[in-house]
């Protein structure tokens, strides 16, 4: 059974443990700027919203890539960037309508969430279960994805 990240913003306290864990796991540094998950703050309302790739079925990033540097991981269902193949053209960063593929100046390649190969560090680090790694056919997750996809074509 494929699993996916389920995000429940109403449980998020804005502690940023997920960003720390993500950047450490993937970049070897505690640096939220290099995290693939990002917590957005709504100052007016005092609420927080963790946000990352939903591994959408449309895979806009993968199809837009001109050099096959983004591939499907059959085991986890994630769309993964192969850094050695990525030329840094950034077309995926504008093709992804969710804005979850970002360019990294230091490496000259793009980065995105790859579910840490099936054991996502952000979910493990989240102290309030705002980020959980659940079965992909979970109803809440399905609705979260449906909502995020909105009226996008295809």
């Amino acid at each position, binding site marked *: 059974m494929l699993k996916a990240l389920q995000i429940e913003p109403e449980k998020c306290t804005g502690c940023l443990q997920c960003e720390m864990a993500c950047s450490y796991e993937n970049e070897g540094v505690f640096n939220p700027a290099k995290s693939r998950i990002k917590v957005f703050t709504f100052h007016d309302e005092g609420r927080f919203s963790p946000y990352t790739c939903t591994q959408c079925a449309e895979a806009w990033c993968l199809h837009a890539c001109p050099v096959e540097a983004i591939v499907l991981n059959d085991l986890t269902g994630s769309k993964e960037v192969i850094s050695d193949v990525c*030329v*840094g053209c950034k077309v995926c*960063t504008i093709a992804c*309508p969710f804005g979850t593929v970002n*360019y990294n100046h230091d490496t000259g390649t793009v980065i995105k969430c790859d579910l840490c190969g099936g054991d996502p560090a952000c979910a493990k680090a989240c102290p309030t279960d705002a980020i959980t790694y659940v079965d992909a056919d979970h*109803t809440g997750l399905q609705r979260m994805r449906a909502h995020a996809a909105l009226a996008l074509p295809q």
Partner: protein
Amino acid sequence: MNHLIIGAGPAGVIAAETLRRLDPEASITLIGDEPEPPYSRMALPYYLVRKIPEHGTYLRKTANHFDRSRIQLKLGRVAALQPEQHTISLDSGERLDYDRLLIATGSHPFSPPIPGMDLPGIVPCWTLANARDIAGRAQPGAKVVLMGAGFIGCIILEALARSGADLTVVEMEDRMVPRMMNEKAGNLIKQWCLNRGVAVHTSTRIEAIEQGGRHPLRVLLDSGSTLEADLIVSATGVRSNIGFFDGSGIDIDQGILIDRNMQTNCTDVYAAGDVAQGLDFSTGNYSVQAIQPTAAEHGQIAARNMAGHTKALHRGSINMNVLDTLGLISSSFGLWMGVDGGEAAEQYNPERFQYLNLQFEEDRLMGATSLGLTQHVGVLRGLIQSKIGLGKWKSKLMQDPNRVMEAYLANTQAIGFNAEVLKSPSR
């Protein structure tokens, strides 16, 4: 079913693969006229700066990829089309028949009518063969003139400057990337280049090119001055490859006219990519966009209709580009130039080379331009394409366009939905 695809660029390759997925039994032939395995033109600038070897430009990296997918690659140049007979002919004289045909022949660089354009040492940067040629000549210290600072020109500019050549850019419009950037953004990019030692002449026309003295070429500008050059790279726009359809009865304007199923006026003939004049999401008109994401979308939709199980309807592609000019990253989306009766939010910070411009119609985002933005830039596309009514967030964005990500989340994240789930008995 016998599917024939002309053109082995991204549109043709993605169509072939999609057809194979949808129809395991079909015969699929992909005809291309370039000797290399299918490759990506977009990757050429990275080959030029030797970030990748030639193999790095290939569209598919696995050996035998096409064999294993039972997609037959055929080297040949299609010379004519006979839609009545369901046949095409190659310039070798060979004829091939098809049940369904996809035309994905892409585009070619336009060569402006300037005296001397046929001299040796003037090349476009369009094919792998061109790129090898340029890589050989753009040696450190070589005098290189880049004709045209449009989108493709600016991408090559980056590669030429990095190769250490002594580079001069000549653009006839009043700013850089005029078809993608407004005055403020286009001029910031120019200033950025000047600061990095690249000479940029805007509002300048090349009148003629002639043989030079110390350097093989001399460029005459309408300002009266001249430039010496070892190499001239031309990037003055592209035109769809539609030449060989003359007399075939297929409807052509700027490109091949297609409907929302990617079908032409001829039965069983489809078109996709740079050669096709398809639906533009933002304008509702049919136009040639000549960009990679559109070629990929076209290829997929055409294949779904060719396979014939379902009708796939194209909702229109968004015109969008991202550009890296010597480290300054810019992007533009949709109706970046604005809409009649619309409103614009703008943040202009020339000292830091930052710019963000959002174009609204009522409370919906219609277009955007950015400079210096690399994080979450894709939501600009998402907001445009999903046509989300931004409600109260519109006025917040009018005050501070940088809050675009918050606006996106506030309007898309399923707080309410998930809250429902929390209460539901299934948990």
